[in-house]
């Protein structure tokens, strides 16, 4: 893979230098992550969309002079390799995400770029695996401020019937001994953001489209097989129909319901805010 070859060369060069300086460098790269609550909402939506495989996406935002990474929105990605714990992002996806970040920068007037990635750990611990830590280390080769987020969900303690959702933020640093990488913990705070941003809404409604696209691509590959008899083709067509129905009932339907509820809530909030505005205007006039 391109990233792997590139990183191997860089890794060798770094090992030949003083690694203790590198450790300090990694520590100083990022001091904290501030995740806007509407971006957090999209991450949660995405992570809770499936418990059978890991989902992933990219974080868009900026880094300030205090080395705080501000994540303003996220981009949901398709997973080309759906094997367990294989959440590497291809160079093409990174490039497409950068283009999207530029578009968001123009839309918001802020210098946006890809600042990190997130993925989910359904039914497993929130801590990054060795693969995750190595993947994160490779991204840091290109951008030392790159951060990784993990959302752990669908965890339940059967005894106390307590469910849990966890999230963590980390970076990677080279271990003092050996060539393995270790994680370092990065403080992460969810920043209140009362209104859901346009870019976050667009990302949220992208999920059903991505799921359908994945299903269509798979079906096209199967459909192109010419040696299948009609019964098998009917079977495959039914599988496609079934899967699309699952997506609509599990994702599109609840998404639409949430959007309608949000619209209703906003309408009520606007009325209340208008009333408050009038009251405050009168109070100001009396002062």
């Amino acid at each position, binding site marked *: 893979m391109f990233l792997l070859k590139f990183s191997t060369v860089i890794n060798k060069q770094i090992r030949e230098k003083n690694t203790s300086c590198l450790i300090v460098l990694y520590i100083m790269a990022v001091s904290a992550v501030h995740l806007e609550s509407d971006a957090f909402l999209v991450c949660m939506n995405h992570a809770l969309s499936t418990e059978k495989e890991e989902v992933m996406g990219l974080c868009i935002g900026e880094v300030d002079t205090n080395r705080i990474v501000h994540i303003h929105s996220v981009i949901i990605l398709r997973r080309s390799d759906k094997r367990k714990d294989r959440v590497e992002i291809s160079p093409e996806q990174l490039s497409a995400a950068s283009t999207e970040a530029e578009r968001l920068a123009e839309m918001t007037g802020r210098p946006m770029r890809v600042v990190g990635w997130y993925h989910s750990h359904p039914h497993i611990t929130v801590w990054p695996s060795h693969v995750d830590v190595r993947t994160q280390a490779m991204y840091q080769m290109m951008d030392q401020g790159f951060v990784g987020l993990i959302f752990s969900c669908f965890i339940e303690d059967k005894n106390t019937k307590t469910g849990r959702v966890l999230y*963590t933020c980390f970076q990677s640093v080279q271990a003092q001994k050996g060539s393995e990488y270790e994680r370092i913990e990065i403080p992460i705070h969810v920043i209140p953001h009362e209104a859901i941003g346009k870019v976050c809404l667009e990302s949220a409604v992208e999920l059903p489209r991505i799921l359908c696209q994945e299903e269509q691509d798979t079906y096209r590959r199967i459909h192109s097989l010419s040696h299948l008899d009609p019964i098998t083709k009917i079977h495959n067509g039914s599988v496609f129909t079934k899967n699309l129905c699952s997506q609509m009932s599990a994702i599109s339907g609840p998404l639409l319901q949430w959007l309608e509820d949000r619209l209703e809530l906003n309408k009520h909030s606007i009325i209340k805010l208008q009333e408050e505005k009038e009251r405050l205007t009168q109070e100001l006039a009396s002062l």
Partner: protein
Amino acid sequence: MERLVYSVCAKDCGLGAYVSIMAASISGYTFSSVCYHSANTNSDHEGFLLGEVRQEETLSISDSHIGSSEFVSVIEVHNHEPCAQLFSFYDYAGNVNEENLNRILKDRRKNVIGWYRFRRNTQQQMSFREQVIHKQLTNILGIPDLVFLLFSFISTANSSTHALEYVLFRPNRNYNQRISLSIPNLGNTSQQEYKVSSVPNTSKNYAGVIKEHGNEFFDKDGVMKDIRAIFQVYSALQQRVQAVCCEVDQSERVREKIQEEVNKLKEEIALRKRNRAEEERRLQEAAAVPLPDNSALPDSSQSSPTQVVLSGPSVEPSVERPVNSSSPPIYSTTLPPDSPSAILLPRPQAVGSPGHPSPSLGLGNGDGSSSDSLNRQATGQEDGDDEDSSEYENLVSEQLQPPSLTETVTLGRPATLWPDGDAHSPPGS
């Protein structure tokens, strides 16, 4: 033994069979929305759960019995109605105000199946006030099996890892029964059900029949008609999603704009009140100072010797912090830049502390709710609750590295509560 299951959408089965709650479910979008609303407030957050209770009858047939049926109830949470602030429908004594309740719920009152509360750094059990409120809500809303969903938020001392725990209570049953809450989702999307090869068959009859009748499933382009049909349904649905999304976006921008205007008005009012108070104070001081000789002091352009200022308690300028402050709160970062051992963090004094080297005292409201403060301390003490809240004092992360490089804190539950017990990497990593 056969088991037949069919569901009846009725709240009361009326057959006198044994009814027990089997499970409950909540949409992932509703769950995320509650987390979102909770994240937007520094204090507790609460609201109502809307949905329906579905009865399912399980019919068992065995060799020894002709048939026995068991009715189970499944709670489905469809959405939630968040309360804009605490104490919006009850007072400090826990007395519920039905008028305020109706104002919040409006015509959604009939859809209420429970209520929820989000708290930080507290135990996973109902507080005394919550129990009192729950009883009243049960009577007022006329829902015998009203449920209560408790969210509890805890963090590591360095704020790198956060956990949201949730428990669904059935308080009107014995021993405050807990119900397992599931989040329906897409499940398996590995697409392994597609067949890449057909079962080998040399029968000409078979090939002939399936070709002749199988063609009815395909259109002239060789594409299955069902696929076109279902894709049309999907496209129409996605278009509607996009359309409603645009409406939501517009409403968000309008709301944001009005909120900003409200914030500005509040700031302006606060500023004018401050200025007025300052002016009054200056006038009071001017009136209190005896007039000097004309030759000694310069002429003051601000003197108003005829104005008599009544001395009273000085008006403290109340700088009202807007509910939705435009400037983000300052969160402490726990990695001092100049420290070479920045990753060696101090042991946490309390869960959820911002990791600041000298955490300040948090202000609790006495019932376990956190105050409107960024310093989240483990209050833990509920009304009438004498248990030690130190259960959540430590939050330990799984160690993948030598202890010298990372700080470890345990989550506030014993290790046995972790389903997998350890945090070894999944196979293949």
